[in-house]
């Protein structure tokens, strides 16, 4: 099973919890026999998407920008399970994670299709995939957490994820997190 871990934590002290979670999840996945591709996004040079659509209409499937996003795109195309880690940022994702996700247009097709009653873009790579999104929070904020879970729901629909889990973890040791994650991993493994 191919597992992709995208850590969108900032490089500074604010990202300590996220980095620790990313490392623990990578260890857990490897111990279960997954092939793990892990990226610390804030340490990579990933430029923002220009919205040029060249990846759809000029050289389909390939981004016009040449930078550190290319291996992320390839790992996304091959992933059976994606794990995203981010500090809650106004209820959404960090700029590091978002920059990488914004650059995923090459992995979808430009056309529209109906999915669960709404319009979405079909995937370029038709692998069944699962999505686990972990948000770290410096302090409890019920409104921000509610926004976060709704955003993940929308992402799951857009990605056509076959199984999705979003969890908000208070900054710190992440007590009890691995149990919930293990269950999610097990379901993904049984699905294959």
């Amino acid at each position, binding site marked *: 099973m191919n597992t992709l871990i995208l850590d969108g934590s900032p490089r500074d002290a604010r990202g300590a919890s996220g980095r620790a979670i990313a490392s623990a999840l990578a260890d857990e996945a490897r111990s279960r026999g997954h092939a793990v591709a892990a990226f610390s996004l804030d340490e990579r040079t990933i430029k923002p998407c220009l919205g040029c659509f060249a990846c759809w209409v000029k050289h*389909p*499937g390939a981004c016009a920008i040449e930078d550190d996003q290319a291996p992320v795109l390839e790992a996304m195309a091959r992933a059976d399970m994606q794990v995203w880690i981010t500090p809650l940022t106004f209820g959404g994702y960090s700029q590091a994670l978002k920059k990488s996700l914004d650059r995923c247009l090459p992995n979808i097709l430009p056309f529209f299709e109906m999915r669960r009653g709404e319009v979405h873009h079909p995937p370029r790579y038709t692998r069944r995939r699962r999505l686990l999104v972990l948000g770290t929070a410096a302090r409890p904020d019920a409104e921000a957490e509610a926004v976060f879970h709704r955003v993940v729901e929308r992402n799951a629909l857009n990605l056509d994820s076959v199984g999705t889990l979003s969890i908000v973890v208070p900054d710190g040791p992440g007590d009890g997190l691995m149990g919930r994650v293990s269950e999610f991993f097990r379901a993904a493994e049984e699905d294959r």
Partner: protein
Amino acid sequence: MNALLIIGSPKGRSSVSCALGRALTGRLAALGAVVEEITVAEALRSPEGRERLVRAADGADVVALSLPLYVDQLPAPLIEALELIAAGRRERPAAAPAPGPTGPRIVAIVQCGFWETHQNRPAAEIVRQFAREAGFVWAGGLIMGAGGALAGRSLDKAGGMARNAVRALDLAAASLAAGGLVPDKAVSLMGKPLMPRWLYHLAANWGFKNLIKKNGARGRTYDRPFA
């Protein structure tokens, strides 16, 4: 009244977001507001640009944030811009009075290439959360589906399909200029479809096929470089 338009589209002043944002701030200017306009791309290009953005946000009575939906949220550079503004207001508490009916207000204008207006909701909720955390009054979200149909034109040139958006922006501008929030009626009008879904799909799919053909990429449309 000072109004600030922040254009959150990476396409800057040629974007649908700019056209919609200007449609609101143009109305505010006609009602007496002094309007400043900043694109996120320009602001993030230099330390001076960042400082200008933070100062402009601090000095505005109304901030209009106009953006395209990117992967169900805000485009990444706009997140960076909002973090800068929030950090600036935390450092200078005097610039960030507690939210109340007379505080600086923020309105989000969000549009997407999907037909359904509701796909923009999480992005508007993120801006609302930003308002909470940065000490702005949340004035409301004007969200619109099928933004691609406007193709960057000003609303005045978009014809009858933009009539509901025009009325929405008239109502919103009048209320904001009077010190109020975005009325529910404006939100509802802005969310009305610009055209039937079948027609939008037909036009969008034809448009992409045409662009692919023009670029000589027809045989490679479904390429999978990582397969």
